[in-house]
């Protein structure tokens, strides 16, 4: 196994064991895999980051239309 793959396997393998059936969370009637939950959290984070992080632009000069 390449070294970089070994590093990733060790890092993420410790967090999420992909060699067994998926883990699910149960909130009442809501049942969701941790994979889907992570994607949803990432989407929320990216959404707020897109609103809050300033966007660098090339401002128009006066009269430059």
């Amino acid at each position, binding site marked *: 196994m390449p070294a970089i793959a070994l590093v990733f396997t060790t890092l993420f393998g410790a967090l999420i064991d992909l060699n067994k059936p998926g883990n699910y969370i149960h909130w009442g009637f809501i049942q969701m895999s941790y994979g889907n939950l992570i*994607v949803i959290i*990432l*989407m929320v984070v*990216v*959404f707020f*980051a*897109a*609103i809050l*992080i300033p*966007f660098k*632009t*090339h*401002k*128009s000069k006066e009269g430059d*239309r």
Partner: protein
Amino acid sequence: MTIADPKAPRPDQADLDKAADRPEDADQWTAKIRTAAVEALPPQRMLPDRQPAYVASWIYVFGVVTISALCVVIATGFVLAIFGPNWWHVSSTGLFVNSLHLWSVEIFMFAMVVHLWGKFFMAAWRGKRKATWISGVVVFLVSVGAAFTGYLSQQNFDSQWISTQAKDGINSTGAGAIFNVTNFGQMIMWHIVLLPLCVVALVGLHVLMVRLRGVVTPFAAKNETPGVEPGAAASEVQA
């Protein structure tokens, strides 16, 4: 059709853009369609060099990210279709292209959802943009179907598991009689022909409508005069 006189003087390009070559041709259907198309979709609005100042935010980037990811999805899908399942399951290059196809779809759906949230919270259906919003919703639903039939077309145990689990859900809707998720031939055709055509056509329509109406303006701030759209201000930024 009128036969053009080769010795007749040629009209200016500007006239050609909006009208028939000759005044006597103006009632032909080709001239009518061309004139209507140029009036409805002027070329300078289709690919503008500048955008209103309020577009200078990362939240406006996700539509383009979605389209970029769609381009990668289609390109990698072409490669997968050329070489087939034996290649994408066994060879290292095939596995790589297969992964590119999967992850570009992940980015496509991810960016599309963030784009949807952004447009929802700015009520992007304002200003005669209802059709644009609805076309986006339809693209999202068709894309879910395209991704689903993609999972069914993997040609592995995962696709078998998904199809046998999904058939009960599909059958409970009554659609199983015509949409059989365990029929690989049918699912692959939906995945590589019907649904991609629908997605690309709808995305094209969606973008045309965005260009036609322009990007929706933000809500006015509380101390601004009602009815004045901040985006209508003169300030612009380069695209």
